[in-house]
């Protein structure tokens, strides 16, 4: 069933907004697309024990993460009629206010694009071996916990 090649997901550092704009622009040649759904994770300036987060430093079990991303992509392609799908996740340090996750689904109709995007985000958060270390102003840190 695996008809799609594994794609590169991890990007060193933050995902630039221009990259997202360019990624959208590339889809204008795919004229049977009617709807795009995009999710972006942005690093938040949480305050933990009176210390403010200034960045998240991401690490991953890369080989397993890449397999997982591929498995999740394939499952989404089987579950929803999608024209295309892109996932990018940061590795290394991403400052607060910057983008660390970019999930992009395109379909003929809005409901499929929207449902597939949410499906991907939830599975990525729950199943992909990536860890975020929340770095504070004073260089202390704490390990991020997803909910």
């Amino acid at each position, binding site marked *: 069933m695996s008809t799609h090649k594994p794609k590169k997901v991890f990007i060193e550092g933050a995902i630039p907004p221009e990259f997202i704009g360019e990624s959208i622009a590339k889809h204008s040649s795919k004229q049977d697309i009617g709807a795009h759904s995009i999710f972006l994770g942005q690093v938040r300036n949480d305050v933990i024990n009176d210390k403010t987060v200034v960045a998240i430093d991401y690490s991953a079990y890369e080989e*397993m993460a890449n397999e997982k991303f591929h498995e999740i992509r394939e499952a989404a392609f089987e579950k929803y009629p999608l024209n295309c799908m892109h996932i990018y996740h940061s590795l290394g340090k991403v400052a607060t206010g910057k983008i660390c996750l970019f999930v992009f689904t395109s379909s003929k109709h809005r409901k499929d694009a929207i449902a597939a995007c949410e499906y991907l985000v939830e599975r990525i958060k729950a199943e992909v071996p*990536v860890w975020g270390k929340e770095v504070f102003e004073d260089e202390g840190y704490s390990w991020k916990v997803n909910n």
Partner: protein
Amino acid sequence: MNITILFFGQLAEVTGTSSLKLSGISDTDELKNTLRKQFPALEGLTYSIAVNKKMIQQKTTLKHEDEVALLPPFSGG
């Protein structure tokens, strides 16, 4: 029989290492006991185990050259 143990995130931090070779370990329960003795700081930390990049839920027999990863709760995205 050699296996490779990988530590990630907070687990790499508390053990002070990101990988380790061990031999003579027959299954994942035995591995957990061995690691608990070698790294008392693991006590009380939550982690999952992946054998050859697949998550396991119960005791699993280990073979030569298996790669066993100790994974803290994921926090990507």
